[in-house]
């Protein structure tokens, strides 16, 4: 079989990529110019983008609607605490912690991926809560109290912020770019086939379990990495926060509002969510109500998310992974 030709990338997409590269370079120089507050906020933004992109990979491309990715966010942070406690250097250990969490994801995948959609969503949440309860038994976590990544205090605060900022920026870029490369490959098409119809995918020879398992582990390692970075910036590890279901709500919000199953959607969703938090975060409970209202408005009037603005006007989806097969 001769491989079918894929069409060259559309011109607006090329510009978008150039623009993204310029933005990344500008962001990379920012810590030398911006204030500590801005740097801290941007670290959080980068972490939000990672969460959104990973959840979209899972739910938007492989159809695995998980409400339990906070298990890996929490475990990434917890593994970092434990490994640093054992004497490992904090910054490189962020990545080691994520990889170790991947082993847990691999073990879990054998159970959860055999379930149907609804059961899968509930099971992932229950398992996340179970893991949280177990982690709370750890003497250094001390139940609800939690613990801190004290080893980071050995570094000068400015240096620490700078290193963490650059690490987060680089991780985000690699994660976004890696997702793009992954979805361009065969596994990308196969996971979308599974999302569209799992039985049909199996009956044309796709090893559905294996594809779902790979995507699940990748998305979980990604969440663990973002979770470990978040912990390194927040320093305090509290099981209720790190394993909190609010992470799943955030991911859902960012991905649905941005445009599920699109490449650029979750990134736009993360930007919007970040902006909403910045602008309305001081309103306390009303802020949460506001987030809910925004979500409802999107569901009613823009179900395809921000990316839907392009699609509804008949324009091509930016950075689309679809319809690139030329015939």
């Amino acid at each position, binding site marked *: *079989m*001769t491989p*079918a030709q894929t069409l060259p990338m559309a011109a607006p997409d090329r510009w978008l990529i150039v623009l993204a590269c310029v933005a990344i370079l500008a962001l990379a120089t920012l810590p030398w110019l911006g204030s500590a507050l801005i740097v801290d906020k941007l670290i959080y933004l980068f972490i939000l983008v990672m969460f959104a992109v990973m959840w979209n990979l899972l739910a938007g491309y492989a159809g695995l609607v998980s409400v339990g990715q906070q298990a890996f966010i929490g475990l990434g942070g917890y593994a970092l605490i434990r490994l640093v406690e054992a004497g490992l250097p904090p910054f490189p250990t962020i990545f080691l912690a994520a990889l170790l969490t991947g082993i847990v994801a691999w073990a879990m995948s054998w159970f959860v991926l055999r379930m149907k959609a609804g059961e899968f969503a509930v099971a992932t949440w229950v398992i996340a809560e179970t893991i949280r309860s177990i982690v709370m038994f750890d003497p250094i976590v001390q139940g609800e109290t939690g613990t801190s990544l004290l080893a980071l205090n050995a570094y000068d605060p400015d240096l620490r912020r700078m290193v963490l900022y650059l690490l987060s920026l680089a991780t985000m870029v690699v994660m976004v770019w890696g997702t793009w490369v992954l979805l361009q490959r*065969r596994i990308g*098409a*196969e996971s*979308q*086939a599974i*999302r*569209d*119809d799992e*039985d*049909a*995918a*199996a*009956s*044309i*020879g*796709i*090893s*559905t*379990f294996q594809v779902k398992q790979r995507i699940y582990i990748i998305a979980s390692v990604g969440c663990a990495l973002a979770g470990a970075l978040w912990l390194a910036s927040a320093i305090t590890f509290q099981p209720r926060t790190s394993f909190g279901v609010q992470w799943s709500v955030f991911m859902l919000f960012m991905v649905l509002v941005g445009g599920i*199953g699109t490449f650029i959607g979750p990134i736009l969703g993360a930007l919007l969510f970040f902006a909403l938090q910045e602008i309305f975060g001081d309103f306390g409970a009303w802020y949460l109500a506001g987030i809910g209202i925004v979500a409802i408005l999107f569901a009613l009037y823009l179900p395809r998310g921000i990316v839907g603005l392009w699609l509804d006007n008949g324009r091509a989806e930016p950075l689309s992974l*679809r*319809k690139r*097969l030329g*015939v």
Partner: protein
Amino acid sequence: MTAALTLTDLVGRHGQLQAVKGISLTIAKNEVLAVIGANGAGKTTLMRMIAGLHPVAEGGILLHGAPVTRMPAHARVNAGIALSPEGRRLFGDMTVAENLMIAAENGRKGDWTLATVCDAFPQLTPLLGRLAGGLSGGQRQAVAIGRALIANPSVILLDEVSLGLSPAAVEGLYDSLAGLKGQVTLIVVEQDLTRAMGFASRLICIAEGELELDGTPDTLTRQQITDAYFGIHKAEEPQHA
């Protein structure tokens, strides 16, 4: 010559319900078999069991003499079984070309490629760039059959070929399917009796999960088939071809 497919006392369940109650069947290489039966008779469950999408509770399946009973669905495609499922089940967010290509990449290598499938089903050619989700029933069925064919199977299962299609669309599909005779073993679930009798070289009728009738269109009468379809005259000895 070993049979293409041998089913031995095959039992399939949906929870407590036994949908397929011990069906034994030997299908020769390149045979064209039509499966008829009322709704709920167990035809689709049988097809899904052969394809590996529904677990086999009891009994066994041999493909060209080799057991495939416990083989997962995706591995059966590489062993040579392809299913065009009931309801077409296309990947709606992909184009027709992508639907076919992803099946080609995961299937076996052979004479069937995007080009030869489009030769056999000319109605596909103008649709290649369209999203599968937006096609008509007949178009979807053609894509589904093409998607099964492009995996280069030795046994092809077509579930409910003409269900919900216009007579013209059915006519076009069967014209194309006739070209496959002699190249692959074809098992076709078909509700239209006249169509089934005209197309197949052998005909079986399933009622309430059991094999009621097995014969060739020449030897079976419409009355026999109708009786078997409704599960009446069970005592009567079915005619064997």
